[in-house]
């Protein structure tokens, strides 16, 4: 310790620096198990008992594995899945008992006298360092890297250039964005259908205060064969797999019916985009893209469950709270053949912001 304190000892004499001298390691005191053969044997039995308990648990694990059913006839135990609980408990205890046994052994019976080791500085000795430096400079000298800048520079250039294939080779990780982020499957005359069931919607079916989670026709998986047959006759394309997921993550909408007098119209939300107080908004949050449908019927405020951005749906989807920066895009509605349909696609990109968003 004293070597290291020589910096401070410039200011204070050593005796002042260390008011109390290091008394050295205290004497070792034996444990009961060191001096009492009875205690020693007891500890020995305890450790063995833990190991035996572990064995029992391991056997019980196997018993539980083969006797407790999962799948259709799940056995239960106080309302919990019996297999899961039993397997976890027996395996956990089997492991824990080994751990506890071993540690108990170490604490009670293994050598208990503290020993010490001397440290050495992290750095190598001066001599080693000098030898290394000498070897290094000799090696560099023999290579002539300092004397031959032409070789050195072209080599560095060649290695740097290797970065290009590395980056270029990643090009096919994905397609280029193109214009896909600005388009959804909504188009003039696309029917709005109920999410999940896929049935089309008549304006009269909605009461004031209704909220419907909806999709463009073709983006629903659970509807009946007749619906699909009927839709395909009208030329609707039913998507599945990755196409379905990609389009759903842009095209999902919510449909609300409010008192027409509650609505505020603006350039963003002109009067002819709604039908008797029925409005449709993108369900994809403009913050980072969570689907949002936590609507408050009386205040018309729509809350995102991910980061709590709140939008006023009676006022063109204006942001009233939270981290979102842009209002929710509105889908212009009209009626065709008695059913609600879109007038067109959204007039702006839906979902989260991106760099090129404004240059559409």
């Amino acid at each position, binding site marked *: 310790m004293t070597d290291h304190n020589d910096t401070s000892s410039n200011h204070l004499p050593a005796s002042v620096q260390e008011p109390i001298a290091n008394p050295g390691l205290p004497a070792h005191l034996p444990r009961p198990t060191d001096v009492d053969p009875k205690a020693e044997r007891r500890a020995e039995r305890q450790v063995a008992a833990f190991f035996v308990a572990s064995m029992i648990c391991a056997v019980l694990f196997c018993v539980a594995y083969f006797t407790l059913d999962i*799948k259709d006839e799940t056995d239960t135990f106080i309302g919990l899945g019996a297999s899961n609980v039993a397997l976890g408990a027996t395996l956990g205890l089997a492991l824990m008992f080994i751990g506890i046994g071993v540690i108990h052994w170490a604490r009670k019976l*293994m050598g208990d006298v503290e*020993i010490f080791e001397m440290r050495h500085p*992290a750095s190598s000795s001066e001599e080693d360092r000098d030898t290394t430096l000498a070897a290094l400079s000799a090696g560099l000298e023999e290579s002539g890297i300092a004397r031959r800048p032409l070789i050195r520079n072209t080599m560095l250039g060649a290695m740097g250039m290797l970065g290009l294939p590395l980056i270029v080779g990643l090009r096919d*990780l*994905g397609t280029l964005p193109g214009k896909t982020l600005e388009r959804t499957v909504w188009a003039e005359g696309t029917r709005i259908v109920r999410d999940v069931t896929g049935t089309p919607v008549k304006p009269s079916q909605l009461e004031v205060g209704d909220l419907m989670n909806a999709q463009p026709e073709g983006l629903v998986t659970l509807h009946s064969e007749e619906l699909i047959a009927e839709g395909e006759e009208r030329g609707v394309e039913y998507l599945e797999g990755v196409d379905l997921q990609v389009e759903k993550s842009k095209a999902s909408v919510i449909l609300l019916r409010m008192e027409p007098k509650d609505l505020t119209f603006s350039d963003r939300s002109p009067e002819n985009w709604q039908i008797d107080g029925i409005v449709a908004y993108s369900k994809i949050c403009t913050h980072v893209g969570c689907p949002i449908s936590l609507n408050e019927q009386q205040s018309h405020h729509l809350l995102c469950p991910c980061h709590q951005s709140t939008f006023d749906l009676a006022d063109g989807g204006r942001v009233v709270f939270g981290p979102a920066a842009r209002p929710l895009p509105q889908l212009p509605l009209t009626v065709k053949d008695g059913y609600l349909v879109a007038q067109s696609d959204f007039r702006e990109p839906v979902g989260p*912001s991106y*760099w090129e968003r404004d240059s559409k």
Partner: protein
Amino acid sequence: MSTSENVGGSVASTNGKTAASAKKPGRGSKVVGWADERLGLATAAKKNLRKVFPDHWSFMLGEIALWSFVVLLISGVFLTFWFKPSMAEVQYFGSYSQLNGMHMSEAFASTLDISFDVRGGLMVRQMHHWAAMLFIAAMLVHMMRVFLTGAFRKPREVNWIIGGILILLGIVEGFAGYSLPDDLLSGTGMRIADGLVKATPVVGTYMSFFMFGGEFPGDDIIPRLYMAHILLIPGLILALIAAHMLLLVYHKHTQWPGPGRTEENVVGFPMLPVYMAKAGGFFFIVFGMSALMGGLLTINPVWKYGPYDPSKVTAGSQPDWYMGIAEGTLRIMPGWETHLFGHTLSWNIFLPGQVIPIVLLLMVLSWPFLEAWVTGDKREHHLLQRPRNAPGRTAFLAAMITLYGLLWAAGGNDVLAVLFHLNLNHITYFMRGAVFVIPILVFFLTKRWCISLQRHDNDKLLHGYETGIIMRSAEGGYTERHLPISEESAYTLTARDRDEVFVPGSGVDANGVASKDGKLDGIRGKLSTTLFADNIQKPTAEELEEAHHHADDEHAHEIEAGLDHSADGHQFDGRHPVDEEALRGKH
């Protein structure tokens, strides 16, 4: 086996029985001999088998992280037997009837199969998830211990950085694993990740498209994450853990100061057998704890979330706890966005999603260098500091933990609102201010608290500890007896360095060498003042001597005054031999 006598070498007896009993050590050395002739391990092993490790509970926190990583490897291998990292659409006809016939990705269907059709599958899945939470939590607690005790100081700065990178990798690894089942919550998480990536200026959209193999969600992300989750990141983590441990062995473990413990030695128990048993036993305990949690506590019930569908969402959409601070910053950020020359820059996402986490990480990683620069200390440190003896540093950590906790709470503001009947919006408004104000308050409070603890230590050194024995003087006044603490305790309290405040322009650095005034000396001086100026230094030998004299004088006084007392308590003053030595305790 018969050749073992020769290898054993030591016993050459004519007595067959003796030779047989000598076989035992012989067999061991035979194996060692075989291996050493090929691998030459004995040289390395001779030093390390009995390597000394000091004993303290806080030195085992890193072990929790290490062992839970091993649990993750074991349980993860089990899961790979059944998990299918594919986003191909399949129809589910497994045992969970509520999703019967549903279309979903193969990844989600195979997760359901692991949970419902593989015995023990759900238990191992949950164990894997719990162990992941423990892994990152243990790394954080370990890091806090290292920070609080100053164990990151020279020569361990590199290990500090490796540790910081390990935490970052652990979090990325956890997020990748959380996303693999392709359930509603993990899909929502990916959706948010997509939003974060897209907010990157200039290249964000391209990054998103290259990440997802096209437009979100695409069908590439899960196979790619799977590769990262089971190969790339665990490989990196494993390599860094190896480096971390090698450096630990090379530097030898730090230790608390105390009698016989110095900067030059390390006192503790040998690797073989004590630490082998303790650390090995702890592995079984960590493994057992993960199994118990996996068996008894539901985590991530993906069957209730259902397969990912970009149009569905659930209240309480949260990431795992370690993503909580990113979630919190995202939630409390005001909606700032700049539109410039036809381009959108989303500060509301870019700042909390990318800039702030990186700044926080860099701040943490650079602390050892910052502190060394301020103190100008170039020495090696192997003795730990008590948190109170580095008030500035302890206060900084307390402030950071507070900030972390606040952001964490902000990330769960909806759950807090429901549980404690609070107003969601008020929590958000409160947090927007609190993250700036409260950490600063906590910094100063913690610093003052540490300093008063230091003062308390000095009181104990100078005036002894409070015995709880109340004395009444002849005049009727009451005083409490103070008794000196034991020599061991007194030494332990004084085994620390004196802090020196750097004064800019003094022209002399900590080593007493004349230094040229640096441009940053002003800042360095200010930082040094904040960190060290108010600290209480340990008493000098003279002060200690004087205090003891003073105490003795006082005693002499009182003894004279109270001679007629039969028992006045002076016999407990520690300077007179008494029977009840036990009273002195271990102060």
